[in-house]
């Protein structure tokens, strides 16, 4: 020890895994008056959070011997692949029901067409939505992580493909009942849908422009000249707000309970994501606009 005073000798602290009794961490320059909380902090800094590619060795809070822990994340798959598969499924599946491919409805309905305008409109909207998502995945989005665990693709595809089939079955059913308030309802719903699709796209473009290609810098998103981005004044994740709005529009347009349920489930998931994003914005930026809520202005 370098300190002459024996009562202030720096201590060495060894942390073991309680279950398997293996050494997890060795801290060699711990102040004797350090609290357990501070030791935990040192420990999690060296083991809990995963290191970034850009981290510099000498800036890490380790002793003269740095021990790095390798964690096998398991089979991975690229985000782009997952998104493309997730979105191509519903696009294709909906069309199977729309064209009334054999073995879905009774044989007398095979390849027949619905007599309701709203059914054709719904097909256009649903297909447009997923084509937009596919194109955005290929040309707009900039992903911070390259990959995700392989099991996610099974989980996600079951969700997207399953719900798409469930919704499409009823909307394209020969016994489909058009909306109660007729053309008025459909027009209003269509307006909501289109506005929200444009809004969602505007936000995606704005987020893309925040981060130059190849960089990993993080900035607070702000409204631009595009009026659709003014929602940034009120929420952290307006892309999710617009997405929920689109599906509400689609639900009103089709007056189909499974669509409403899909919107509800999607809303729940997006709220969780929005809250997480909002929290990380607050943690990272001291000057984050206080008026903003995660997903619903003033409410949520």
């Amino acid at each position, binding site marked *: 020890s370098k300190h002459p005073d024996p009562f202030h000798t720096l201590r060495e602290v060894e942390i073991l895994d309680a279950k398997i009794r293996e050494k997890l961490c060795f801290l060699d320059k711990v102040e004797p008056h350090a609290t357990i909380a501070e030791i*935990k902090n040192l420990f999690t800094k060296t083991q*809990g959070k995963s290191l970034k590619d850009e981290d510099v060795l000498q800036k890490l809070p380790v002793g003269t011997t740095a021990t790095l822990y390798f964690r096998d994340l398991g089979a991975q798959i690229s985000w782009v692949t997952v998104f493309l598969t997730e979105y191509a499924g519903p696009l294709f599946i909906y069309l199977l029901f729309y064209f009334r491919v054999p073995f879905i409805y009774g044989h007398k309905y095979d390849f027949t067409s619905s007599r309701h305008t709203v059914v054709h409109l719904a097909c256009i909207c649903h297909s447009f939505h997923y084509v937009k998502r596919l194109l955005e995945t290929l040309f707009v989005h900039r992903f911070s992580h390259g990959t995700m665990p392989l099991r996610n693709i099974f989980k996600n595809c079951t969700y997207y493909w399953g719900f798409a089939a469930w919704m499409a079955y*009823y909307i394209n*059913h020969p*016994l*489909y009942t058009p909306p109660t308030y007729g053309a008025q309802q459909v027009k209003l719903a269509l307006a909501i849908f289109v506005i929200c699709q444009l809004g969602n796209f505007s936000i995606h473009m704005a987020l893309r422009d925040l981060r130059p290609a190849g960089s990993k810098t993080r900035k607070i998103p702000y409204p631009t000249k595009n009026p659709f981005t003014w929602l940034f004044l009120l929420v952290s994740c307006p892309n999710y707000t617009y997405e929920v709005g689109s599906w509400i529009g689609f639900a009103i347009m089709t007056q*189909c*309970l*499974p669509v409403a349920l899909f919107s509800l489930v999607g809303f729940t998931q997006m709220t969780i994501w929005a809250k997480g994003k909002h929290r990380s914005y607050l943690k990272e930026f001291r000057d984050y606009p206080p008026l903003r809520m995660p997903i619903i202005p003033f409410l949520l």
Partner: protein
Amino acid sequence: LDINERDGGKGKLESRKFQKENRTHLPRLSSRGSLSKELYKILFFFRWLVLAIAMVRFYMEKGTHRGLYKSVQKTLKFFQTFALLEVRIVPTSVLVTGVQVSSRIFMVWLITHSIKPIQNEESVVLFLVAWTVTEITRYSFYTFSLLDHLPYFIKWARYNFFIILYPVGVAGELLTIYAALPYVKKTGMFSIRLPNKYNVSFDYYYFLLITMASYIPLFPQLYFHMLRQRRKVLHGEVIVEKDD
């Protein structure tokens, strides 16, 4: 220095200057909950005991199981619905408890309550008995653990009775659902057909078939989970994990 335990989110740091276990004679309060959680456990123990006594008395007086369900149903429904609280109170994993509680609520409200003709089936007695014995054992285990005076028999019972009781209970539940099927098909209860203005359909009959099928993947998982717990507790470490 005492054993210094602090539950801090992802991990605990324990300094073990002394190897022996820290044994106090005060009721151990869970670090996360308040005293009320412990009271609930004791309450649950007594309510299952009450239910068991009611069932035995009924059988002794009437000599038959017919009408048994009718007489215990109010108590059963009340306490089983109350069991929703268990998901947050009981130290087992949320998923395991959640599955168990939802299947119980499903049986009580969506099957036996709604489908009156099957209330006199023998299979109903089967699962009622299985549930009652399981719960009494489980809650006396929790209660005695709280008082830090757990007789080995209770622990033994909690980790061995289920070996027979789980399959018996599942058999009772499945047989009851199976008995209900013809009635459900005939009356079309809880079902909605096309066309309707919400453009949705639901067939309770097929839903029940799917539910019965779901026992196939779910039951073995619960069963093996309990078997693993049993091996750990009875043949492994003395310390029982708090978080499964």
